[in-house]
């Protein structure tokens, strides 16, 4: 009887250790940030974008649409559709400190609300894209995409880290 209990504790500690390793691997795959530079990540994301529908926007557009100053961050990549009939846009920001994550995510959520109000009545397809907006915070990188290809853009972002 004693021998059997000895075995249980010994086996369980190895099992739990293996589970911890698996858990850490999952964390690294799905939640981790990256030591890569903003330019490296931005180049990878830019390469995946459909530039026929999306155009790179300037700092004023970021300020106008999100209320954010690009100078406050390590890097900003902002693409949006030129047509006012389209809600498509992709934003990548690298914050300088963790404190900035909340202000950026608040701005993203507010942007979704504002755009939903604008599109809900007359462009249900665009409103659906907004409802399915893809947001991800990975360490200091914040990714946001409103697009029919948002999943593909997100995949490119995840791969770039």
């Amino acid at each position, binding site marked *: 009887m*004693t021998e059997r*209990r*000895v075995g249980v*504790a*010994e086996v*369980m*500690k190895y099992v*739990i*250790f293996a*589970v*911890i390793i698996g*858990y*850490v691997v999952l*964390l*690294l795959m799905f*939640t*981790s*940030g*990256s*030591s*890569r530079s903003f330019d490296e990540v931005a180049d990878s994301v830019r390469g995946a974008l459909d530039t026929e529908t999306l155009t790179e926007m300037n700092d004023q557009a970021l300020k106008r649409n999100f209320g954010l100053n690009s100078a406050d961050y390590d890097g900003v990549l902002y693409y949006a559709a030129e047509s006012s009939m389209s809600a498509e846009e992709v934003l990548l920001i690298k914050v300088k400190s*963790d404190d900035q994550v909340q202000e950026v995510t608040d701005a993203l959520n507010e942007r979704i609300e504002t755009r939903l109000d604008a599109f809900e009545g007359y462009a249900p397809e665009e409103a659906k894209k907004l409802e399915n907006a893809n947001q991800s915070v990975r*360490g*200091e990188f914040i990714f946001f995409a409103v697009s029919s290809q948002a999943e593909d853009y997100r995949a490119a972002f995840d791969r770039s*880290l």
Partner: protein
Amino acid sequence: MLFSSVTFLFLFLPVVLAVYYIVPDKGKNPVLLAASILFYAWGEPVYVVLMILSIILNYFCGRDIDQKADDPAKAKRSMIFAVAVNVLILGFFKYYGFLLDTLNSVLPSDIPYRELPLPIGISFYTFQSLSYIVDIYRKNVKPQNNILYFALYISMFPQLIAGPIVRYIDIEEQLVKRRISAVRLGQGAMIFIRGLAKKVILANMTGEIFEQISAVSASRLSVVAAWLGCISYAFQIYFDFSGYSDMAVGLGKMFGFEFRKNFDYPYISQSISEFWRRWHISLSTWFREYVYIPLGGNRCSAARNIINLMIVWTLTGMWHGAAWNFIAWGLYYGVLLVMEKYVWGAAVDRLPKAVRHIYALVLVMIGWVFFFSPSIGYALRYLAAMFGGGAGLADSGTWFIILSHWLLYLLAVLGSTKAGYALLRAVTGSSARGRVSVSTIIVYFGMFFIAVAFLVTDTFNPFLYFRF
């Protein structure tokens, strides 16, 4: 969740206390455990899984060591496995980014890596787990049979996030049986309020002054400004951390637990050795019991003892953070303790009391410069400013800060010495035996409401030791 948050003070704590006191004795540990898991998950919804896995791992490791106790070689292997896994997990989350950054800076390489945030409290709960494992191996304690009780020991919310590091041997009996009463609830609440006031009023206000001064480039600081910045940080970190520890001890008492004190007026010390007997006592005790003594302590040659001290203090520095400034801070204290022990300790003892006090405080202040600096280069520039290498002796801005905040510094000095507590007891009319008068209740309620007023008007101010 922070102790110094409105959510904790007016929602979490009252609800948990009410449920805890209503349920029969058998239900108290499960209630406290559930509250602790919720408390942690509130701030760390992802890493709560890591903590639970760590609890289960250490529970089985403890049992495995005990079951192999008849075969010392097997027990030792089992203990080494448990210690290695705990250190590996802590090391991975805390140091692997630092290690790769260091490699990238010294080698012609640029190894990219995935960054994970440091799980809050991991340094504290890992050290508690290690003390449990080693004490079982040493046969100082028996392993806990009830996994819920063990989980409560590791995750108990009053001390989970920033200590004190409670050794299992100190709390083993209390996990099974403890005294819960209205008197102890009241005593705990008083200790908690003192800690809250220390943090919210004194730590946050002195912290604001430090932020203001440290925002100026070190080379543009006058001597007085640099010293005021350093002194402000010394008060901030003391009231921040000892305030948290008081809150933890007070909360523990409210739930029937007795935790050892973590601070004993460190700024009244007259030597560096004394300072470390009074500062973060639970960490110093841990390193003494589980690193210094196993290395041979002082029962060895002087050379070996010096090596032991330097190992312990390098590890103490590293425990505080994965950065060279913390390692420098640890080494600085290692060198000072070696010097006090082998070179100038006897001479210091012969100095007048006031000189000994100044000696200790000046060295502690220099130590804090390494601690708060983002890099060793900045620390050296800041130290240069403190000793005249900055922008002159004094500046009008600093005098304005001193004149407009003299009362704050007076309170901070009083609060750092036994005189502050004696004054509080005199004002409230409470006796050393814990008699509580009406004036005590009024004063403590006053302190509580002032602290809450600061809380609701202040910006977010997490505890400094959360990042360790």
